[in-house]
């Protein structure tokens, strides 16, 4: 029972990071039908940017204000990268065959990943201890302050995003564009603005996810984006890609699944089990748990 509760806590923590990153994938896919392979590397870049802001700009301060500033600056930086990425690598290819945009995304991923390596070096860096190491022991189940912060902050961000997409005019524009871009344009929606907004939101949520990864795992490497990005993308697919609540659900499910596999079965086979889960879900429900059944556009 102890293992169960411990892995439940760990799984929810990992899951909320997956979910934050998965939202970036799913929103871009929803509107552009494009797997933004560079998203995972932007998540990694965010952790490094956070590291540099901490050491160079904030003078290694760990006050609440300093930590909040680090989060905001890193998110803003990644939002800018997201917009530049969209303008340079994706917008020129919007009318091109779909796979061209996929290769462009792979190229952008290489650029960002190796850009990180050129700037911060190929070795693992240690992310600063921004949050004090506080642990609570509930009869064998240990929960840290970091876990609580990650879980609460992720939930707040996700609920805020959900309300924004469901309740505001701009949110309605996002939903309309993801159903039918051309029809949305005919209704007077500026699809270019919607896409820019999606990259801003997705990238800054990913940036928060990247900082969480740094806080939680501490060791950050230039090529970690692929690993987390792939998992987050799988989470988005499991939930039904293009579907925002689906990404949150998928992230949480995948986080729990991983934690329980690590706790009860073995961690050497974690990747294999994750992909088996993905394949089983795709065979049973080809469009994910919350995805609608739609035929591929002809």
């Amino acid at each position, binding site marked *: 029972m102890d293992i169960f509760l411990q892995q439940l806590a760990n799984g929810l923590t990992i899951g909320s990071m997956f979910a934050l990153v998965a939202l970036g994938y799913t929103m871009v896919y929803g509107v552009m039908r494009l797997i933004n392979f560079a998203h995972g590397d932007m998540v990694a870049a965010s952790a490094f940017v956070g590291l540099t802001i901490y050491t160079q700009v904030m003078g290694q301060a760990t006050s609440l204000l300093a930590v909040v500033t680090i989060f905001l600056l890193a998110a803003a930086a990644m939002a800018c990268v997201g917009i530049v990425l969209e303008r340079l690598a994706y917008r020129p290819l919007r009318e091109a065959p779909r796979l061209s945009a*996929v290769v462009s995304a792979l*190229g952008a991923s290489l650029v960002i990943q190796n850009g990180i390596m050129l700037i911060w070096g190929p070795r693992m860096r240690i992310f600063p201890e921004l949050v004090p190491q506080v642990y609570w022991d509930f009869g064998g189940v240990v929960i840290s302050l970091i876990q609580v912060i990650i879980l609460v902050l992720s939930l707040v961000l996700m609920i805020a995003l959900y309300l924004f997409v469901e309740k505001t005019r701009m949110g309605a524009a996002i939903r309309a564009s993801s159903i039918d871009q051309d029809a949305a344009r005919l209704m007077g929606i500026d699809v270019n603005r919607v896409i820019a907004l999606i990259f801003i939101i997705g990238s800054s949520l990913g940036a928060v996810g990247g900082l969480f990864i740094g806080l939680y795992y501490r060791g950050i490497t230039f090529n970690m984006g692929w690993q987390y990005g792939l998992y987050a993308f799988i989470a988005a697919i499991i939930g039904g890609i293009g579907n925002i609540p689906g990404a949150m659900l998928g992230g949480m499910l995948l986080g729990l699944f991983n934690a329980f596999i690590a706790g009860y079965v073995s961690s050497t086979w974690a990747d294999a089990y994750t992909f088996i889960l993905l394949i089983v879900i795709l*065979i049973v429900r080809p469009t994910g748990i919350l995805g609608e059944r739609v035929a591929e556009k002809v």
Partner: protein
Amino acid sequence: MKNLQRLGYPVFIVVMAILPFLLDPRWQAVAITFLIFAVVALSQDIILGKSGMFNMGQALFFGLGAYTTAILNSKFGWPMLATIPLAILIPAVFGILLAGPIVHLRGDYLLVTTIGFNIVFVQVVQNNLGGITGGPNGIFGLDAMKLFGWELTNQVAVYYLAFAVLLLTLLVMRNLAQSKAGRALHYLREDQLAAESIGINTRVYKIFAFGLGAGIAGLAGTVYASQYAAVSPEAFDFMQSVLFFSIVIVGGSSVPGVLIGVFVMFVLPEIFREFATWRFFIFGFAMILAMILRPRGIWPATFGKIPKFLIKESNHGA
């Protein structure tokens, strides 16, 4: 372009045939790598370019062939040459079995599933399943290939083996393009609904394309294993699959396009070795730029003898 192509093939074959005598051993090794990777990229082209299935796991079949050869040679003492049939058959069967349940998936889902197969394969090999794959270090000390009692120990011999496999692959590609199966694949790539409605069993042909592509990649794996007399997991990880995928799209699903793609992705890095740390950074930019300038690939595919005015600029597929 037609004339260029007609002239291009004999020139290419002659140049490749005399190439090893013009190169020093280091560049001979690079040339062998070029030939092997060209075969894998062409096999990927059958699945991705010719049939339009978003497969990002081709290194799996390449690796499966290489490991089949390595295991049969090192654990069961088979001569290298005798492993070839199984090194084609096992990847082909895996291709069919793995493709079976997933070919109906929408493009991007198929892509992620094939990435998954590739990652699971590497994990299986690294964890040394059944104690025969050698774990993270792989298997080394394989025998040299023997052909009619003649050992292919030197590099030039391996080069000609790889060259022969490339020629064989080109022959298969040409026959495929002119066959019923090739036309069926072309239709289903262009418009699956229309293909189904004129009576093409799309599921069977999709699985066929996977089986064929996997078998050819497996054969390339055997040559790879005999070049290095070794196999190791990282040579077949999913980054390799990403490269093969990119080659076909950047090159543009035609034989010259794929060969240019392999040259750009695997030979240029060797030339610019001094810039090793900058290599992939620049590569990424080159990939984006290539796609923006030539969205249909450097050397786009042509099919059959259809007059130009009949070809509608289609917006899907590679």
